[in-house]
């Protein structure tokens, strides 16, 4: 059986798994083996999704919940990487810069971003600034660390080659250290993106009136189970889409990686 399966292209086997799971889910819920308050049936999820699309959740359209979560995550992410990448490159390349920044980074690094949520709500209330700042700290942390690793691991042959070719230190930083660090920078971007998305959902669980995190938390409190499932699925799909976007960008820009 397994020998036969090895000759079928990967796509069909993976699709087969999905079909099998959906079929199992259909049977289990419709036969009453699992109650609707634990696992809604596929039809229940589908009609719930239709209702969300038509009338939104808590008088806010669905796209607005999705949009506000994305806005918070992406603004914090972009600000965080805009600061984290240059500072990371500098501390990775220059020992004095590293010495200056390392006490700060050593302190911030081990703190899970989620731990800052109560503080953010205390200082900034339920407004947007607090959440963006939280995401900023998260994205900055991971973008910085990976950019630092990228700059610190530039092969010394590249630096020596650049010096012998007559480049100034500024040119070496821009034209050699930065491109050489791009593979690490992209790793940092992907991690920062994934965590920014996770943290925005976490922040919305406790301190928001709109957004996907708010939606699943609120729906759970009033036992609207299908909405919870749909919310989680949406969070998953959007996270996946964000990651895939970065992967595509990476394969275009860092075309030499892994060769």
């Amino acid at each position, binding site marked *: 059986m397994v020998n036969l399966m090895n000759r079928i292209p990967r796509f069909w086997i993976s699709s087969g798994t999905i079909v099998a799971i959906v079929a199992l889910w259909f049977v289990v819920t419709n036969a009453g083996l699992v109650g609707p308050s634990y696992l809604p049936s596929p039809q229940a999820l589908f009609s719930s999704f239709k209702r969300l699309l038509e009338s939104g959740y808590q008088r806010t359209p669905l796209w607005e919940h999705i949009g506000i979560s994305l806005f918070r995550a992406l603004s914090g992410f972009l600000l965080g990487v805009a600061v984290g990448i240059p500072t990371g490159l500098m501390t990775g390349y220059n020992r004095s810069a590293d010495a200056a920044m390392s006490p700060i980074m050593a302190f911030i690094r081990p703190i899970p971003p989620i731990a800052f949520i109560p503080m953010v709500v205390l200082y900034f209330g339920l407004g947007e600034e607090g959440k963006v700042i939280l995401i900023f700290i998260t994205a900055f942390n991971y973008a910085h660390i990976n950019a630092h690793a990228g700059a610190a691991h530039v*092969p010394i*042959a*590249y630096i*020596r*080659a650049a*010096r*012998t*070719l*007559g*480049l100034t230190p500024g*040119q070496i930083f821009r*034209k*050699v250290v930065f*491109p*050489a660090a*791009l593979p690490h920078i992209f790793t940092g971007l992907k991690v920062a993106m994934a965590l920014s998305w996770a943290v925005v959902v976490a922040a919305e669980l406790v301190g928001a009136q709109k957004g996907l995190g708010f939606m699943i938390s609120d729906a759970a409190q009033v036992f609207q189970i299908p909405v919870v499932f749909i919310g989680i699925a949406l969070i998953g799909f959007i996270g996946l889409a964000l990651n895939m976007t970065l992967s595509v960008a990476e394969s275009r820009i*860092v*075309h*030499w990686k892994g*060769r």
Partner: protein
Amino acid sequence: MYHKAALRLMSSEARPTYSGAEDKVVFEDVSKTYPKSGAAAGSTVAIKSLNIAIKKAEIVSILGPTGCGKSTAMNMIAGFEFPSHGQVLLDGKSILAPGPDRAVVFQQASLFPWLTVLENVVFGVKSRGVSPDIYSKRAEQLLKAVKLNGFEKHYPYQLSGGMQQRVQIARALISEPEVLLMDEPFGALDSQTRLMMQELVLQLWVAYRPTIIFITHDVAEAIFVSDRILLMSSRPGRVKLDVSVDEPKPRGLEFLSSASFVDMQANLLTALKEEVH
């Protein structure tokens, strides 16, 4: 056409007499010590009292066992490292920093993987502000000389090791350097490619006449390519033998099987073997 190569040996005690004006690179009583790494106390003496005079347009090989300090000596000419004692002089002046007048061909891959072959070759001259009219023509000539015309738009990862080294050579020569430093450039290549590259170095010398300082652990390569071979002792490194190779250039493969070549090779191998204990 090919004369008998003369073999002149100088003992390590004799100092080379140099005429000053013709000397391109001079080591004046150079020593280099490194502090021991980790918890160990004391220091390692890499080179001790090195005295070398290299003339303009000379091709000199530095031959020696691993750890004898030959790379350290080259790094000091390149400007990557500085002597603990003594001076390394270029045209009579102390070397303070790396520069395009002393181009380097590295042992490891040092081409920038995000740039094409052509972009790699012109990277240095372009960044220094040389006019594109000047450097594009030179780049074209050099790529043709190293037989890589047609590969301008390729990326380094699409090239074999030998081809990458050829790009390095083109990149080094585009600034028309007075000194070309080659640090075991062909060590990672197979013997056929290595032979091709050695012939290429000789051809390029005939065309451009740089002073070439060539590090190798391969005795045959040293004899084939150089005017002069400096055999270094094991750590702390000093010049053990200074051998002249009088075979006129360009040299063909016939030189490799000539009696003088075989003699020289035997003598050098014996001397080298003594150092590897």
